């Protein structure tokens, strides 16, 4: 199956991003991914680590570029724009780029970007000399999808697109194409047949159905955005209401036009002499521009020369000259070949800007907030280890047994318990967490369903500093996120307002989850924001830390200062005193 990239469905968005990049960078001649990141941030088209503007750039940049979010984002854009033929890598480096002559026209198409984008997607063909995609198929995907829709009563659903056009090995083989149409027609009638066919395809290819679906996101977004298709629901085809894409009037017209055009691939041109190749490339490219609403008057004379060259050239050239061709040189030909055939938009400026610094961004601002931690110290104390609540006897026993069976190793005990509850849902997890707090000597209960004012998931009752607890079970989210922090804030506001239990502003509001956040800096930043703006303290405890405290108390006779948790600010950090 052809694996198309998924740049998201905001096609206007990434076209705009390209146009902005062109505005900012075309004068450089060559530009890097860092240049792209800088340009995007300066034009408010990229954010990172919860920040906008220069702060985003500062916080994103890191030595390990593979973990630099903005760098990776620029890399994704560069891969997309290469596929679209709007940029090419330089001869010297695959991570340095130049805008193509085609890209320059996309950038200048302010009146109607749709028209030139349509030509672009129709120009995508595999294999090609521009992007290294390992594929054994010979396919012009968007043209193929349009032709297939025409052959299937003007509509196809996503799953049919997966099994049909995107699974062909050669879309110019009429037999294979017609067989594909016929196969899909046979599937129509019963949804079970379609479902089974998808399962088989998934199994044979070793790709999940979800992943296969992801490969269709870009084509579906394109079909809708271009206006070639609209979404409808239909039960007719499979006796089950499914979403189909149906060709619109203009989509049908486009599909019919594609059927009339001569689909040329780079491999067809191998035998062409260089001068005829150049003429052909220019003729088809300018025909693309003309269809996209560009005025060709300034280059008519060159075009006439090229057309005459084809007319008088080899047999292949004559064929190419006869029909309108579907071929996009900047998306299929070797970039090095094209340099001599087309104007280079940046050449005239490069000499003026040789001193421009394409510098490396250096900063260490990222991770600034990840250090909001509060140490909770453990001290040995006589009399520790017991808990009053009979209902927690089972939990205590479980923990003690695990401690023994793990050779009295705290880390192993914590890991074992953590793994045991790693797939728990709320019904198990909330009472478990409340029970663990009770093991630590807190008067803690989890909330019962249906009690409206109890918006929190658990609660530590105290005469002065009651603490609401927001719990995220692994079933809800494995790693705590800003969602839990927001809910913790809400819990505290409700408690302060409605006062069902006594509390103060100084008492914390807790968020408890199975693992700490993947991106601690974003969560820490929000905790800091809340503290600064509202003077409300949010504390975060992960399951491992909570278990460590419980094991310390039950098995090692070590206690912690209880107020350390009820005033916790930021992430808990357990340490021995």
């Amino acid at each position, binding site marked *: 199956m052809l694996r198309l990239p998924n740049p998201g469905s905001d096609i206007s968005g990434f076209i705009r991003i390209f146009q902005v990049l062109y505005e900012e960078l075309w004068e450089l001649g060559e530009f890097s991914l860092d240049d792209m990141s800088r340009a995007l941030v300066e034009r408010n088209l990229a954010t990172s680590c919860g920040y906008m503007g220069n702060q985003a750039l500062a916080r994103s940049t890191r030595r390990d570029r593979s973990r630099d979010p903005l760098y990776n984002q620029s890399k994704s854009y560069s891969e997309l724009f290469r596929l679209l033929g709007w940029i090419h890598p330089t001869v010297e480096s695959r991570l340095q780029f130049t805008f193509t002559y085609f890209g320059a026209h996309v950038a200048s198409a302010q009146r109607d970007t749709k028209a030139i984008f349509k030509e672009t997607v129709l120009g995508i063909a595999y294999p090609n000399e521009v992007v290294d995609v390992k594929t054994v198929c010979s396919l012009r995907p968007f043209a193929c999808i349009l032709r297939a829709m025409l052959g299937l009563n003007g509509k196809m659903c996503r799953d049919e697109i997966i099994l049909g056009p995107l699974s062909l090995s050669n879309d110019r083989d009429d037999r294979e194409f017609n067989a594909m149409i016929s196969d899909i027609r046979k599937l129509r009638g019963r949804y079970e047949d379609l479902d089974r066919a998808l399962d088989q395809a998934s199994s044979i290819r070793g790709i999940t159905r979800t992943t296969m679906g992801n490969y269709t996101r870009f084509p579906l977004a394109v079909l809708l955005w271009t206006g070639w298709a*609209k*979404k409808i629901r239909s039960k007719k085809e499979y006796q089950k209401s499914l979403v189909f894409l149906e060709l619109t009037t203009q989509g049908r017209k486009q599909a019919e036009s594609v059927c009339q055009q001569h689909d040329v691939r780079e491999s067809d041109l191998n035998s062409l002499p260089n001068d005829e190749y150049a003429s052909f490339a220019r003729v088809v490219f300018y025909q693309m521009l003309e269809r*996209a609403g560009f005025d060709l008057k300034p280059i008519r004379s060159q075009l006439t020369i090229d057309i005459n060259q084809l007319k008088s050239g080899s047999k292949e050239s004559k064929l190419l000259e006869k029909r309108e061709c579907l071929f996009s040189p900047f998306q299929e030909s070797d970039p090095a070949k094209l340099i001599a055939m087309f104007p280079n938009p940046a050449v005239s400026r490069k000499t003026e800007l040789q001193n421009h610094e394409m510098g490396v961004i250096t900063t260490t601002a990222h991770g600034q907030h990840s250090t909001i931690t509060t140490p909770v110290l453990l001290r040995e104390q006589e009399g520790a280890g017991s808990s009053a609540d009979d209902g927690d006897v089972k939990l205590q026993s479980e923990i003690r047994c695990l401690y023994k069976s793990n050779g009295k190793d705290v880390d192993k005990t914590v890991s074992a318990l953590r793994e045991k509850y790693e797939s728990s849902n709320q019904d198990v997890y909330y009472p478990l967490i409340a029970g663990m707090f009770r093991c630590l000597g807190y008067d803690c209960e989890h909330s019962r369903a249906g009690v409206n004012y109890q918006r929190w998931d658990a609660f530590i009752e105290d005469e002065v500093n009651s603490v609401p607890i927001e719990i995220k079970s692994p079933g809800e989210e494995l790693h705590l996120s800003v969602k839990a922090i927001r809910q913790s804030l809400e819990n505290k506001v409700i408690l302060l307002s409605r006062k069902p239990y006594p509390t103060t502003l100084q008492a914390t509001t807790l968020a408890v989850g199975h693992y700490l956040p993947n991106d601690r800096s974003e969560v820490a930043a*929000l905790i800091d924001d809340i503290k600064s703006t509202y003077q409300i303290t949010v504390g975060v405890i992960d399951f491992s830390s909570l278990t460590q405290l419980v094991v310390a108390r039950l098995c090692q006779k070590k206690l912690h200062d209880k107020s350390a948790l009820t005033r916790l600010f930021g992430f808990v950090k357990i340490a021995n005193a």
Partner: protein
Amino acid sequence: MINQPSQDSSDLSKSQTLKQLRRTSTQRKLLPGKDPAKVYWDEHTGSGTIEFSDHTTSIGTCLRCPDSPCIQYQPDELVVPFLPSFPLDATPRVCPTDAIHWPLEQAAPSIDSENCIGCGICIARCPSAAISFIDNNAVVCDDESPEFVTASEEEEDEFTSSRNKLLQSPRSGSISPTGSGQLGKFRSKVDKAIGDLDSQFPNLLCRNLFLSLGVSAAIRRRGDTNIRLDMILGPPGIDAATAEIEVGYGGILDAPRNLMDNVAVLCNRYGIEKSAVLPVVVASELPNQRSEYWQLVSDISTVLQMEVATITWGSLALMSWNRVRLTNETLRTFYADETTYSIRTGLEGAIGRSVLGDEGYPGLIESQK
């Protein structure tokens, strides 16, 4: 109609790119001596009329503006001054459903009635009252009028002067004819569009409605997972506001807590005074009275001294049709909690008239039981 652009037909220099064909200008200007006194919409027919200082009148007719303000915003219209680095969605479309187009071969823009949701934003943008609601859809009038003549491209200044005179003329009358059921139709078309269009549609609709109320507005760029604010609003009229946009009842309970997050971020990271930021929930309809939403709004007011305004899409549309200019004070009147469950006071105060029932838009200003 299609022009050959201004490009030398001599050999193309190496650095030049070709240009897209553009429209031959057929913009209109006022006859000399014609000064508009006011622009109004007929309350029965909804059609736009221009009255001149000499007491003559003209139908509102299309000026064929080269920059087509009924179709697109200019980039600087989409920036909110208090936070210029906001990663905004710079979609320049005025029409949230992309129903208005101006093909090269047409003399004036036209509106696809199938896709028109009757929001009236294009009507609000038109300087010459050329667009009006007919049978609940927006329609462009391009009829000839003796008060207007074609201006050549060289008469750009005269065109601009005519347009400015029209824009500065006092306007009256609601663009939605009385008893037309416009609001109810708007609601049902919006509900359908939500199912048909992409996920950014509700945000675009809300942004453009706010823009039509004379404030600056920006929605977050789609796919940006770093910034959590849905929308920000700013001057003129509003100092600073942050909004959460909600469709249906599903996420509305989350909206107040999201706003607390937004305000904290704006204050701590971008130095905006807490008292200067207005938090707003922009909802398709008001949540019902059983929802915890109202109590939560009250809690936030009590504890954080922040009054969350709740405003429905229908309220925005009604205010737009009545040319309300939104201010901090007006926005504050949209505060509602469990003691009121209603934004009637806010809306009626803004549009200067009573609102009868829900005008075909359930949950417009009163929370349903």
